[in-house]
Structure formats: structure tokens, C-alpha cells
């Protein structure tokens, strides 16, 4: 009789632990897989987040920041926007501010730089840095993982 009660308690504990583990796995899965998909959908871009790997946009965006990128059409772009674009050589992305809009290309410059960048084709623009209440949405230090991975 007592043995049956003990076995029942152990079974209940095992079931409870299994349910807890499955719940945690589901939560982690939703956050890891679901959050980027949700951001991609809500910000209308395949690259919803970007890490700042240099100080070229200091002090607006600092090295190690994680910023949100919003997909935009060509007509929505204006001088002063901070945009993300694919580099012409295909190696990585750059986040800089638009200084001039031309017919086929646009010119950008890092705030901390003295020189303009090479002209960027409109089709290479990935998106614009997302703003909340007029301020650039950034998560300090969360981009350092990417910064270290880039350097190694």
C-alpha cells in the first residue's frame, strides 16, 4: 500500500519535470526561431537586426550596439536616414547615413568619417535603421557577439 503511494508520487514528479522541460524547450524555441521571423515580418525585411562593428556612426550608433532594420522602398528614402546596404564586393553590410540621393545611386557617409562612401545602388539597400519616438532603436552591447565573431 505504502509502496504504491511512493511509486505514484515518483511518477507524478517525473511527469511534472517532463512537462517543465518541454515547456522551457518550447519557450526557448519560440524566442530563438520565432522572434527573428516575427521581426522579419513586422519590419518587412529579411535582415531585421544588425550589429554595429565599428565606430563610424559614433555617437548615434556605438560599436557593439544591436539595431533594428526596417525594410523601405526607394521612394521612402531621404537625406539624413541611416541605412543598411550590401557592400559592392558582396562582403558584408554597411550602416551609414544618406548624404545625397541621385538618379541611380545614393551617397552615404559615416557620421564619424570625413569622406563620403562610394556610390551605392538602390537595389543594394537592405533597409533603414528603425526609430522609436524619433530615436534610433538600439540595444547596447548585444551586438558584441557579432563584433568578436567578425574579428576572429
Amino acid at each position, binding site marked *: 500500500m505504502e509502496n504504491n503511494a511512493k511509486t505514484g508520487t515518483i511518477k507524478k514528479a517525473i511527469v511534472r519535470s517532463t512537462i517543465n522541460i518541454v515547456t522551457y524547450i518550447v519557450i526557448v524555441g519560440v524566442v530563438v526561431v520565432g522572434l527573428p521571423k516575427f521581426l522579419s515580418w513586422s519590419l518587412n525585411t529579411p535582415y531585421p537586426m544588425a550589429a554595429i562593428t565599428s*565606430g563610424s556612426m*559614433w*555617437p548615434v550608433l*556605438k560599436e557593439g550596439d544591436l539595431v533594428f532594420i526596417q525594410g523601405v522602398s526607394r521612394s521612402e528614402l531621404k537625406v539624413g536616414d541611416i541605412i543598411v546596404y550590401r557592400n559592392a564586393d558582396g562582403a558584408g553590410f554597411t550602416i551609414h547615413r544618406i548624404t545625397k540621393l541621385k538618379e541611380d545611386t545614393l551617397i552615404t557617409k559615416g*557620421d564619424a*568619417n*570625413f569622406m563620403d562612401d562610394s556610390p551605392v545602388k538602390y537595389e543594394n539597400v537592405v533597409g533603414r535603421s528603425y526609430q522609436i519616438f524619433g530615436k534610433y532603436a538600439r540595444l547596447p552591447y548585444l551586438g558584441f557577439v557579432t563584433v568578436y565573431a567578425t574579428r576572429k
Partner: protein
Amino acid sequence: MDDQQNNEKKAKFSISSLGASVKGLGAKARGWIEKTAGAPMKTREKVIGIIVIVIFFFAFYVTLDANKYSSLVRVIEGDGKVGVNPTADALDFGDLSRGTSAVRRVDIENGTPIPMYIAIIKTGRIGELTKIDKNYFTLGAHEKTKIEFTVYMPASAQIEDKYKGRVYLFKIPTFGLTR
């Protein structure tokens, strides 16, 4: 009957207090722990307690022994202008115009026979403009080295702005565990 019981309790109490005073401070401390925790400490808890205390004092010593430097730079108008203040007490980078940089070197020496792990941490607004040639490294016994701090003034720096911060140089004894 009640008086007799009270007398017995008092007697027991007086004996235990006498025992505590004879055994000294250790016994008093044990008594305090027992009273606070409601049970005597197990050997496992004593070991964990000692480890926590040792770690705390180690961290306290490392923090207290750290070299602290205040660091500052002022942005001035013009091209290629640099004005360095020759102070040894602080990492003063003087006046820099946009596009210029200044370097300060700090000599450190490990005068002990124990190798030290050196960790340099920069804080404040100037920290974002400062590059250090080596942040984390091990300094062997009786070894010397130079650390270079470089501040570059970017195009987006505000004229007449002062950027301040602090640099902490922690020396952690490694006892030969790292190279």
C-alpha cells in the same frame, strides 16, 4: 512544581552560557549561526562558506589594488591641432582637433614573484574613443611592459566638448595557472 521546573531551566541555561564563555569566540559564533539558521552548520556548508569568504576577500583585494587613472580630452577647432598636457597623474590627452589622435603610454611592472593577469577596463564617454593596444594579458614575475592608449577624435565630435572617463587596471594573481 512550576518553581522547581523554572529553577531547572535556569540551571541548564547558566551551565550552557558558562560552556560558551569557556569555549571562546568560536563557540559564540557557532551559537549565533545556530540561532540564526535554526540548525548547526553541516561540513558541506562550512566548506562552501569558507570558499565564499576567500573569493570575497580575493575580489576585494584585487579591486583595492587596481590602478585607477582619470582620463580626459577636449575637442578644439581647426585641422591637425594637438595640445598635450604633460601630466603623469592622469591619462590626459590634452586638446585634439577632429581627425587627430594622441597616444599615451603607461609602464607597468610586476614586482612580485607571482605572474599577474592584467585586465584593463575603460569607462565614460572617452572610453568610446580610446583604443588600447592590449586589454587582457598575463605579466610574468618581475616583468615590465608598456601599454598604449590612443584617442582618435572623429568628425562627429562636438567642438569645445570635454570627454572624460576612467581607466581601471586590475592585477589578478594567477599563481601560474595561465600563461
